């Protein structure tokens, strides 16, 4: 669980709020206090960098949580290695987080009904996600997808399935 990074994000958010409010206050009174606009621009740039860092960290944490969710209950080295190969394929196909989640369940053998329940969505939604997955991966079925993944595991180039 990425509690460390989450705590870091919380602290950085507090810092960013503090710095940004300081800049807003400075903007109101900078003339009378002899602060130059150049100085204020540096302050603003530094704070903006902090905000950008926070955004990256949030994306990182959400991605970590997503990968952890797909690894549910399996912590063996083999399982993690397999998960990495699967993740690499998902990234290559530019799947959305929802599509990745559906694809993971599909690879694990869950039915459309089961996937719908596990995700709290309707079966129609799951089917739409599956169609997108097949389209983006250039496949037509679960077997095709699994075949692509196993090919990579066995280090053999995939047959022309695009």
């Amino acid at each position, binding site marked *: 669980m990425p509690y460390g990074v989450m705590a870091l994000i919380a602290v950085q958010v507090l810092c960013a709020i503090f710095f940004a*409010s300081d800049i807003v206050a400075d903007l109101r009174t900078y003339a009378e206090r002899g602060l130059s606009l150049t100085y204020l621009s540096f302050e603003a740039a530094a704070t903006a960098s902090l905000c950008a860092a926070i955004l990256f960290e949030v994306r990182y944490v959400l991605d970590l*949580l*997503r990968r952890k*969710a797909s690894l549910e209950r399996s912590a063996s080295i083999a399982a993690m290695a397999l998960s990495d190969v699967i993740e690499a394929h998902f990234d290559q196909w530019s799947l959305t*987080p*929802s599509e*990745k989640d559906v694809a993971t369940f599909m690879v694990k053998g869950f039915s459309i009904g089961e996937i719908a329940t596990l995700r709290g969505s309707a079966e129609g939604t799951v089917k739409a996600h599956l169609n997108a997955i097949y389209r983006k991966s250039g496949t037509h079925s679960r077997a095709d997808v699994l075949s692509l993944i196993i090919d990579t595991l066995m280090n053999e180039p995939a047959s022309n399935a695009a």
Partner: protein
Amino acid sequence: MPYTYVWDLFVRVFHWSLVVLFAANALVIDEDSKLHHWVGYAVVVLVGARLIWGFVGTRYARFASFPPSISGATEQLTEIATGRAHKHVGHTPLGALMIYNLLATLLLIGLSGYLMTTTMFWGADWLEGLHKLAVSWAEIAVALHIAAVVYESRRLKINLPRAMVTGYKDMGPE
């Protein structure tokens, strides 16, 4: 689980009274006026009543139904990260954290405000600074709360603000 009664009358009246009173004191009422004090004490009384109701009230009003939970909050973040959308009946874990934050902050505002009127702390700069800081923190928290409610309403496809008015959540088909 279609149309579910979630928020009892006390919770709803409490929530919107707080909105009006806090907005009035923070934005409209002159901070040097006696009215400012009275509205502040009214907020403290309201929060006190909510604390009691949190132990003896209806199911989703009780704190036991939304305990502060880091693991629960992480689970909710995982849901958001994976695009899952399990609908929650009462307060979600993240919502719970915000509520406890707001309740505590409002009490801090009220307490610091009251202490400023005592002879012992009359003119204490640090206390006034604490009071104002707590108010700024509450305002930021409220802005975040509103943004989060809007976001969750869209993510889960439930009209959450309306639920806090009518008491009913439209949970969708079974």
